[in-house]
Each structure stands twice: as C-alpha cells, then as structure tokens.
C-alpha cells in the first residue's frame, strides 16, 4: 500500500549528514510508507532535514514498525533518566 501518511514537526538540533558534515536540523518528516533501502514493504521513516540548505541536507532513517516503537521507548527512557533541570 501507498499510505501517504505523513506527519511533520519542527525540530531544533543537529544531525551528521551527507559527506560526514554536521548541519542544523530545523524540520522533521515522519511517515509510514515504502522505504527506499530497508528490506521491508513498509517502514517508519524519519527525515531530519534543513530545507533551507536544499534537498540533500537530510538524514533519513527507515525502521520496521517494531523497531520504531522500540526507539520511541528508548528515547522516552533516556529523557526520563535525565535530571529535570537539564531537560529544556
């Protein structure tokens, strides 16, 4: 199936992207659809991007649904373990 399902969010941070260079991440696109590379029919895909720097300023990940949920749990666990005063 071609889900078209897409969610967008504003992000603030950095990613290490093409040509091993860091760039400022401003936008995230999250979608469940066909992957380009992963060997699964559908994956949870995340683009960490900076559209102002052009289409190539993008770090893309394609995760199976199960591993995407594991990632969400791991992110939540890591955030929960940090002292409250550091989580701004």
């Amino acid at each position, binding site marked *: 199936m*071609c*889900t078209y399902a897409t*969610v*967008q969010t504003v992000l603030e941070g950095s990613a290490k992207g093409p040509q091993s260079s860091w760039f400022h991440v401003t936008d995230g696109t999250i979608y469940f659809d*066909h992957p*380009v590379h992963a060997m699964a*029919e559908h994956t949870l895909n995340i683009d960490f991007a900076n559209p102002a720097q*052009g289409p190539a300023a993008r770090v893309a990940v394609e995760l199976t649904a199960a591993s995407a949920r594991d990632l969400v749990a791991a992110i939540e666990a890591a955030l929960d373990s940090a002292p409250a005063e550091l989580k701004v």
Partner: protein
Amino acid sequence: MSESLCAETVMISGEGGDEIEAYLARPTDEGPRGAVVVIHHMPGYDRGTKEIVRRFAELGFDAICPNLYWRQAPGAAPDDAAATARAQGGIPDEQLIGDVAGAAAHLRALPASNGKVGVIGYCSGGRQSVLAACNVDLDAAVDCYGAFVVGTPPEGFPLKVTNLVDQLPNLGAPLLGLFGKEDSYPSPEQVVELDEILTAHDKPHEFHSYDDAGHAFFAVDRPAYRVAAANDGWEQITTFFTTHLGG
C-alpha cells in the same frame, strides 16, 4: 524490430510552461510507433523507473518519464527529491495534469510518432495515470495499484489527496488496471467498486488482480516484487498498449 535504443535526459515544457527534466527512451529504428508516458511512483524519478522507461523502448514504443519533483528539487538525488516533495505536501493534481500533457505533446512531436500516446503509473502514479486520462488527450491508460482512485484518503495529513470518483465520467481512454489481491490500498473491495463505477459509466476497462501479490509487485528491487504477477502484468501491458497505440 531492432533491439537498439537511445536513452537520454531531456527538458520538456510542463504545467504552466515550466521547463522540467524528463527521461526519454526510444527505439533507434524508424517508426511510425506509439508512445508511453511513464508516471513514477512516490519514491521518485529513480533508477527502477528509468529501467521501466527503457523497457518500453525495448518493446517498441517511444517512452518518457517526467521528473514530477523537478520544481521542488532540481538536480537532487531521487530519494532526497521525493522527501522534499513529500514534506511540501506532494504534487498538486493540476501540476501533474499539465506535466503529463507536456510529456504527451513532446512524444507526439517526435519524428517516429504515430500520434498515439498512452500513460502508465505505479503506486501514487497509478492514481495519477487515471487522473491524467480524465483530463488529457490520451489513447490508453494503465493503473498499477493506485490508491485513492476510489475510497477516502486519511484526514489530517499534509498530503492533499482526493479520490477521483467525480472525474471518472470524463475518463477518455481505455483503462487497464493491475492489482494485488493482498493490497490494502487499493483493497480488493475498492477494485470492485472502481470496476462497477466504470461499468456504470460505460468506460472500457480491463482489470487483473493477482493472487500472492500485494502493493508494488512490479518493483524488482523491493521485497514486494512478485515474479509471477509482474511477468503476467508486463504481458498484459504489452498487449494492451500494442492494441491501443500500435506497435
């Protein structure tokens, strides 16, 4: 028929007179012959799509695929261009119609053209193939598992996709539909619904739904590839285009 062909990147005039990139493949022998516009899938103007364009040339047709994401991401890698287009909400239907019309005009202006042009699209391009055939002067159309020709797209997402039910009375070309019975979008029920609507409108169409196949069964570089469905599908496409476009 010679098996020699020529494949190249060209610029064509698309919607609004915009110059956009396109991939053109042609048999090297003299015509006259029919031609095919290939609409790429949502992952973009990629290697697999260009292989399909060359296959149509090998089958004896002039064939072209417009880069639907050229405006959003000129010169970008296909996957980056697809990501950019998705983040910007996808391709407006009006733009797709104009780009396919421009591609068809480019094909009809080629020296070997017999004047007949068909369209084929895969995945999101399947819906766009039907959309084009409802709005552009075309001689045949193929929909490979396009979602939301009928049915209701999800709400609340940035991609603005509507179904084509209100446009189907304007379908101006015979339609070949190729679907996987294990697909959910379009589901087998939606394929039946489309079949019934086209029959009610007295639109010539021919559908094939394959066992043991889901979405994207033509995609040779993806786990969804199903050799039996893809081989039979290619035979159906070849017969259909040869019948309606000439060899």
